[in-house]
């Protein structure tokens, strides 16, 4: 049983390394080749865990090979559009000027129910609100609503731009740990941080969360005291 435990641990480390090496794209929406690699890796990983007679190399080699192939293919895809078209396909326009292209939907094997479900997931309940929609290579539906159906923006209301509202608050302290990169981004230093925390009668370790926005507003949440 200890053999199974250590094999699982080794494979877990290798798979995490592989997924990290493949990059953040792997964790987001998957292209067809990425989906294939993910499924294959998960299936291959179980073989040496379940069957102790199988050498660990029989699991590690194919997993690492798939990771390598995926990276190489993704880099080739980046530089050659034709290759990208072969591996990932192209987005397909299914609604144009409010008119549904039923032929394209049939080609994609997308039913009317599928279309409405995808629209509803984006809080669109009527086709009359949609001017343009396309099915991405990941299968997701991207929608461009008609002007009057779009959420109101500041520009539409002719509001004045407020640059201080353009950036989100940044987390400077998280569970007692300082994020140096964000501190530098906010053009603040440790001394300012310590003074700010001290002004709340707290120490760094007592801070659960501290954020700072562009207006200079500090939001501080102290850590809960364990009972």
């Amino acid at each position, binding site marked *: 049983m200890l053999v199974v435990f250590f094999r699982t641990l080794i494979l877990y480390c290798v798979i995490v390394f592989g997924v990290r*090496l493949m*990059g953040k794209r792997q964790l987001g929406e998957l292209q067809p080749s990425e989906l294939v690699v993910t499924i294959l890796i998960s299936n291959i990983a179980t073989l040496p865990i379940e069957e*102790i*007679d*199988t*050498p660990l*190399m*029989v699991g590690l*080699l194919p997993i*690492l*090979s798939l*990771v*390598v192939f995926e*990276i*190489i293919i993704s*880099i080739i895809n980046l530089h050659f559009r034709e290759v990208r078209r072969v591996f990932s396909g192209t987005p397909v326009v299914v609604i144009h000027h409010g008119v549904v292209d039923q032929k394209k939907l049939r080609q994609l094997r997308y039913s009317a129910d599928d279309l409405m479900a995808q629209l509803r997931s984006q809080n669109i309940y009527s086709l009359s609100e949609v001017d343009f929609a396309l099915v991405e290579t990941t299968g997701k539906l991207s929608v461009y609503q008609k002007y009057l159906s779009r959420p109101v923006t500041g520009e539409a209301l002719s509001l004045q731009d407020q640059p201080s509202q353009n950036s989100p608050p940044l987390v400077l302290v998280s569970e007692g740990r300082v994020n140096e990169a964000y501190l530098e981004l906010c053009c603040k230093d440790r001394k300012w941080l310590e003074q700010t925390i001290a002004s709340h009668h707290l120490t760094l370790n007592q801070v659960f969360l501290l954020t700072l926005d562009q207006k200079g507003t500090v939001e501080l949440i102290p850590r809960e005291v364990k009972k």
Partner: protein
Amino acid sequence: MKRLAIAVVLLVVLLSVSGYSLWSLRQLTTQLTQTAQQLRELPTDGPLEEASRDLVRQWEKAEDQLVLYVNHEKLERISQTAAELLALAQYEDYSIFYSKVDLLITQLDGLWEESLPNYRNLL
């Protein structure tokens, strides 16, 4: 680019490891097959027991390396055959002894044949 470099290095390492395992398997099976063939050629009044013991020792040494990349079930079958050889030599059951030597040679050849990336194994 960093990711590509790591991928290329990893690819080289994987190919090297695969190539080395194939080469190592070839070396070990060739040596063992030669020893088994020498054993096959020994007469019944020759040092069969001593030669069988040498073969078993050689196999055990080779097995330590082969477990890293060969299915253990296949190795266990060969271990079983090798162990039987020793017992047969000790109890002077020569007809079965020689047929077991042939079986061992076939198993070793099979081990090598199954590892080759030819069309038969790939398909």
